[in-house]
Structures are given as C-alpha cells and as structure tokens.
C-alpha cells in the first residue's frame, strides 16, 4: 500500500504503544485472568477460591436454568433485532422520503441514542408500573389486559423488549439514514417513474441497496441485545419473574454481584465470549464485503 509512507518500525510501535499497553493491561490481562478464575469456585470478590477445574462449566452446561437462560437470550435477541430494525427502517425510510421538516424528524428519531440505559429503565419502570404507572391504566383500557408484569413472565418480557427496542431505534436510524443518503438519487427516481409503490420501493429497491448496512446493524444489535441491556433488566425485572427475562448477561451479572460467585460468572463470561466471538467473526465477514474499498 502506498499510503505506507513511513517505515521506521520502532516509531510505529511507539505510536501504537499507548493503545497496546492499555489494551494489554486493562483488556487482555483481565480477560485471561477471568479464564483462570472460571476454574475456581469463589466467594468474596474471588478472594476466596476453591479449585474446581471445569466444574463451573459442567454446572452451567447441565443446568436447566442456564439452558433456559440461553434460549431466552436467543429469543430475546431475535425479537429485539427484528423489532428494532423493522421500526427503524420504516421510520428512516419515511424521514428519507419527506422533504419538509426532515431535519426535525431526524432529531426526533435519533435522540434515544443519547439516552442512558439507566434513565430509560427508570422512566419505563415509572410509567408502566402495574399498579401505579401513568400509562398502565390506559393500556389496560385500550387492550383489555391486566398489566401485571411483576408476576407474569410474558408481560415482563414484552415490557423489557419494548424498552430495549425503544432505546436502540435512534442508533439504527442514524445508520440507516446515512446509508439511504448514500444511495444514488437516480435509483429511487427510476422506481418512482416506474410507478412502484412506496412499500415496494422500500422493500425492492432500498432494502437490497443498503443491505450491507442492515447486516452490520444486525450484528451490532445482536451485541447490544446480548451485552448492553442489563441495566434495563436490573432496573425493570431483575431477570424475573420466574427467570422470564434472565438473559445471559444478567445471569452473569447476578452471579457476580448479587451472589458473589465470580468463578461461575467468569465461566459464564467465557461462554459469552465465545458467543461474541462467533458474532465478531460474522461481523468481520460482513464488513469484508464492503470494506474492500480501502
């Protein structure tokens, strides 16, 4: 590559040093230690430990609760990914199509990206509280259901999913709008001239054209669903009721911080790490397809 205009290796390493040192000390080393910790049964922040070899893994792989946690995680991710992308795609496309007020709509649609999960969780908890929530009564009146997600697993799952999707819309819309803006105008105009309906245009013209972005978002949303939703769960459902919202990351968090069982939590993080590894592999595969311009 002819961009490589400098060739003093030691200078290159000097430039990389801060990143490498921080990565090694605060990312790689702790990760390696986590693998080690996963071989122990622990108490008290891992200071008291008992060698158990693969015992933690064995426990997890034979635990019915953990199996159901994995299944819930998968189901949750699929619903979140599909839900958030369907809503975001519709919103993005409409924003892309409108001419007046586009900037305002854009801001109104992307702001949840800035929303801290803790804030999102607390606000949702407040407005949807089964007996005290502001909009619980209207929902009960409107849909004829008894809002009681503290004890009903299905409802808890729905509330959590809605909150999680809500917060992620902004992030998706930003990407989708950016991608739509990259589509040459002529392609949409051609479809317009051909009299293709708006829905058809979205599904047949734009969706395929921005599919690399959609694929990328699918991966990012998976990571989001897997990792960045635990604040919601902590505030809204604590994994319950009856484990209905106990996704892997929350189960891990709970084992570590509620039960002081860091060894088991470490084993869970190793398993999660393998799952993310597969996801990252997918992402690299995906990005390879459209990163070749560089």
């Amino acid at each position, binding site marked *: 590559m002819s961009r490589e205009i400098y060739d003093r290796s030691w200078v*290159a390493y000097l430039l*990389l040093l801060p990143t*490498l040192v921080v990565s090694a000390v605060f990312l790689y080393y702790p*990760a390696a230690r986590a693998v080690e910790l996963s071989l122990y049964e622990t108490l008290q922040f891992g200071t008291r430990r008992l060698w158990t070899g693969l015992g933690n893994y064995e426990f997890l792989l034979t635990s019915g609760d953990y199996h159901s946690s994995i299944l819930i995680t998968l189901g949750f991710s699929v619903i979140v990914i599909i839900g958030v992308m369907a809503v975001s795609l519709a919103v993005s496309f409409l924003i892309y199509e409108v001419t007046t007020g586009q900037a305002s709509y854009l*801001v109104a649609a*992307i702001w949840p990206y800035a929303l801290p999960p*803790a804030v999102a969780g607390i606000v*949702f908890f*407040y407005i949807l509280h089964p007996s005290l929530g502001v909009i619980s009564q209207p929902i009960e009146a409107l849909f004829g259901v008894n809002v009681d997600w503290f004890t009903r697993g299905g409802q808890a799952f729905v509330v959590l999913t809605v909150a999680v999707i809500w917060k992620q819309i902004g992030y998706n819309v930003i990407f989708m709008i950016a991608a739509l803006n990259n589509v040459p105008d002529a392609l949409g105009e051609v479809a317009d001239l051909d009299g293709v309906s708006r829905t058809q245009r979205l599904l047949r013209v734009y969706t395929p054209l921005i599919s690399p972005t959609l694929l990328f978002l699918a991966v990012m949303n998976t990571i989001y669903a897997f990792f960045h939703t635990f604040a919601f769960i902590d505030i809204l459902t604590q994994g319950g009721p009856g484990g209905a919202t106990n996704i892997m990351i929350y189960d891990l968090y709970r084992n570590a911080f509620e039960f002081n069982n860091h060894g088991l939590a470490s084993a869970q993080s190793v398993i999660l790490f393998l799952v993310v590894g597969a996801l990252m592999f997918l992402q690299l595969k995906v990005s390879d397809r459209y990163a070749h311009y560089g």
Partner: protein
Amino acid sequence: MSLSNPTAYVDELTGENTDTDKLLVHLGLFTAVLLMALPILIALLVSTQQRGVITSPADLLPGSHMVHNYYTVMTDYNFAVYMWNSFVMSTIIVVGKLAISLLAALAIVYYRFPFKNLMFLLILFTLMLPVPVRFVPLFNIVTDLGWYNSMLALTIPYLASATTVFLLRQHFLSIPESIVETAKLDGVGPLKFLVYVLIPMSKGMLAGVSVIMFIYAWNQYLWPLVIIDSQSQQVTQVGITLLQGDIQAGELQWSIVMAGAIITLIPPLLALIAFRKPLLETFGVQQK
C-alpha cells in the same frame, strides 16, 4: 432544534403538500416520533410536579415545582457534583481516546512495519472483551495500581478504543493517496503530518467519533458503581440510581427522580443534536 413541534407540521401540511399521500407520511412519522418521545415527555411533565405520584394520564399536567425540583436534585442530591464528575470523566475519555487512537491509526495506516496486521487484529479483538467479561480481574488490577476511588480508575481503562481506531483508519484510508504521497515527497514528518494534515482533514470525523465516545462514556454505569465508593467522586449514572433509592426510602417523590433523569439525559442529548451532521458522516464512513 428540539423535538417536533406539532403546529409546525400542520403549517407545512396545509401549505404546499396538499396531496394526501404526503399527509399520510407526515402523520405516520409524527405518530412514530411522538410515541418515541412519549416516555421522556411524561418524565419531563412529572419532573415539574410536587410529588409525581400519578396513576392516571389525566393528572399529567405541568406542575409548578420545576425549578424547585431541579434545584433540589442539583444541590441536595449532589447532582451538581455527579454531573461535574461525569463531565470530567467523559471529557478525559473522549480526549484520551482520540489522542491515542489517532497515534495508533497513524501507525496502522501510514507505517510499514512487521506484524502490522496482527497489531490491528489485536486492537480490533478488544471489541470482544466488554467489561462484564473481565470485570473482577480488572477491579483487582485497578486497585493494585492504587486507583480505587479515583478519576484514573474511571478513565484510563477506557482509553484503548477499537472502535475509534477502526473508524479513524477507515477515514484515513479514504483520504486520497496522492495527498499522502505529496506529504511524503515534501518530507513531512509523521507528527507534522498528523497535526497539519490528518487532523484538519478529519474534523468532521473526529467530531462524530467524539459524540459516540462521549455518549458511551457518559452512559457508563457498572464500572463506576463498583470502583467508586466516595460520593465526591461518583458519576451521574450511579447518582440516578442512588437518587431512586433515596426516593424509595422517603416519601415518594418521583418528580425528583424524573428531574434527575432529565438532567442526566441532557448533556448527551445536546451533544447528539449539536453534532448530528458529523455523526451521520461518521456513520456513513463506517459503512463504506
């Protein structure tokens, strides 16, 4: 710019877009963004009331305690301190990440050196190591370094950023080769090249990345919760849950909690709105 203003749209609609199709699009969009804004609008309304114990939408009216609530949250509940700490933390993380990622991206794009791809992979691979995966050992290292309860603990472990390096690399790769070669022909040294050429040519990108990083840093919750035990050092994300705890302890004052929630939301929201254009560009680059 603020959230959509209904009357503005009505004006627009009755103006030139009489066509029902456009009306429907606006109607759909408006409903969508309104639904998205609804929870926060409710929070905003509640934050102006005296107690905020509201069980029916009919009670959702602006109250008269807005100033008092926000003042109370900032002073009695230490949000002034938390917000300042969050701000300092986020700023250090953003600036630090940009600085060391710029150096790393400079090396990765513009240097020829052995094991380059390996180094890049090592940096990218850190994406696979989110905080929960390495939490306990991280805690041990940070406390061994004597950083327990300090701003160092909140910031330094976050400085390495695969995302930033990756985005900067993508952006650098989009700078025309000939510009780079011109610099080489002129014998421009790496630091001068970085400062006078790369950084000025990456302003939009850097602004976009900064917003991403700022929001990311600002929204950190788990790590400050564990590594900081002194209130004078605590950040606002933990502050909001402490606030919620406090409110649960006393007589219900949801209005105060919602005021805290709104305050916590404001800085990242302002950053997002102010820098939405470079952000869009940044995300555009990432997709290429």
